[in-house]
């Protein structure tokens, strides 16, 4: 087996005879992240911002240091980085706060069928409430979002363009920079769902000029329970919080209260402190390896797996031209849940279903599919196993009468 320089950092893989190919659902967590989380619980375990004692200062310092690391990672200012429960909470905050304040009856929100449910449903719910309209970008024949197709649906009524940066089913990269320029020229803001992008692509929010960008910690080597909303300072400043409670207030009066500045006004209650600190450690690891090196590896591994898999008779692949480490496929005539059980029995961990993107699955004209997703710790041996088990699976299901 080839030497993978990063694999030993992931204790979840140690001593296991398993090809883990579900990183698009959640990445594995390296020792450094586990240690950072452990340090908080083991040595500090106290609340942030409030305590007038050493361990509280230290916890606060680590929490804010994590924010600074995330900010540097995406080239944002610290005050533009809001910690939230996950990418879902981040996208919901934009719709519930910014969206609710700005959308008028008849306004339009552009989304796509490639969106994860968390990038459509907050806008769908809001649109229904205010009488705005969801407009779907037509996808090209490969089911990609193109600049021209966005241009074709952009109108003076478009207030928000909410698109995925990288599709979690197809692995396509959306040409966001051009779309953002186009949207701004027409007076709309752009909300990017970067949950599948931030662990693969270097993101410079200033260069991109994106208005909001959301992602989760746990898909980028970090802990669960933490996510990030980047928002331009001016936009965050004008937004009202949607959760009220401890720590987000400036002054509380009987009838009317005032809030802290962003990001704190959006971080009500006790935050997932350990997870935020762990996310900081995850960013450290991604920075020290370099996203370019990671993506180079992922793309090579994925290409290798794809080249072998497409030769297997009975396998249908839906995204031959994917830009990142995802293969969406099925065994012809076999429901993916039946297939996934076979793969699981042979220690190949895949995702089966609609991947929280029912519209993408419908666009493919199928009920569900299998998804193999690759990340830095995957090896050529993992790919070989995927392909070998795929061959066995085709044989098995044919044998039992599918």
């Amino acid at each position, binding site marked *: 087996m080839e030497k993978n320089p990063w694999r030993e950092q992931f204790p979840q893989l140690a001593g296991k005879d398993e090809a883990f190919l579900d990183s698009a659902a959640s990445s594995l967590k390296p020792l450094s992240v586990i240690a950072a989380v452990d340090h908080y619980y083991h040595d500090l375990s106290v609340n942030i911002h409030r305590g007038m004692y050493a361990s509280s200062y230290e916890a606060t310092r680590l929490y804010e240091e994590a924010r600074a690391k995330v900010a540097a990672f995406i080239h944002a200012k610290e005050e533009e980085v809001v910690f939230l429960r996950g990418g879902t909470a981040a996208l919901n905050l934009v719709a519930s706060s910014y969206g609710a304040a700005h959308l008028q009856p008849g306004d339009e929100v552009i989304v796509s069928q490639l969106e994860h449910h968390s990038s459509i449903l907050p806008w769908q719910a809001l649109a229904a409430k205010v009488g705005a309209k969801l407009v779907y970008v037509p996808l090209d024949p490969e089911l990609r979002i193109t600049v021209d197709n966005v241009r074709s649906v952009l109108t003076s009524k478009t207030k928000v363009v909410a698109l995925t940066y990288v599709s979690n089913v197809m692995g396509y990269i959306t040409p966001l920079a051009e779309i953002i320029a186009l949207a701004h020229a027409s007076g709309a803001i752009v909300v990017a769902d970067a949950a599948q992008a931030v662990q693969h692509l270097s993101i410079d929010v200033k260069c991109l000029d994106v208005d909001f960008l959301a992602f989760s910690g746990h898909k980028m080597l970090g802990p669960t329970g933490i996510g990030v909303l980047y928002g331009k300072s001016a936009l965050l400043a004008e937004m009202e919080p949607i959760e009220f409670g401890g720590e987000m207030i400036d002054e509380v009066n009987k009838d009317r209260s005032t809030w802290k500045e962003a990001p704190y006004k959006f971080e009500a209650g006790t935050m997932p402190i350990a997870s935020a600190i762990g996310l900081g450690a995850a960013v450290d690891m991604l920075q020290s390896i370099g996203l370019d090196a990671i993506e180079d590896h992922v793309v090579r591994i994925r290409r290798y797996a794809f080249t072998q898999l497409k030769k297997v008779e009975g396998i249908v692949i839906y995204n031959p031209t994917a830009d990142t480490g995802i293969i969406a496929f099925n065994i012809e005539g076999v*429901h*993916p*849940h*039946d297939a996934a059980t076979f793969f699981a029995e042979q220690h190949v961990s895949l995702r089966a279903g609609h991947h929280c993107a029912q519209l993408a699955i419908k666009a493919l004209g199928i009920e569900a599919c299998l998804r193999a997703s690759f990340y830095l710790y995957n090896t050529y041996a993992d790919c070989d196993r995927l392909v070998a088990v795929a061959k066995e699976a085709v044989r098995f299901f044919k044998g*039992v009468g599918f």
Partner: protein
Amino acid sequence: MADLDNLYRQIIMEHYKNPRNKGLSEQPGYVTAHIKNPSCGDDITVQTLFADGTVKDCRHDGHGCSICCASASVMTETVIGKTVAEALLLADNYLKLVSNKEYDASVDLEEAAVFAGVNQFPARVKCASIAWQAFVRTIEEQK
């Protein structure tokens, strides 16, 4: 792999390919229940016709994996002709069996007993359960 092989080779594949009592009835009197497993897309509708405290007819429609579709087919064959009390007892024990809970082994689950193999595959328990859960719902609704 022997577990998986057994699971499929028994009655399951036969029912998957040749489902019994499939397709919903247009006739009045049927009680309908619909259950979906949103995480995998299994989607089953069950219709039951009750008369004089017995299950006179039971039909199913929908889509899903082989285990889901086959269990719906086997379920209808198993419950038709039973009294409501018998059918409920069967459903209760079947659901316990597939989810690896303690069940009454003296209850004869007939063909449905082949789904015992599902309890080796925790990820598939839901697939084997939803048709029976929908059937139980039709019993609850006719009361």
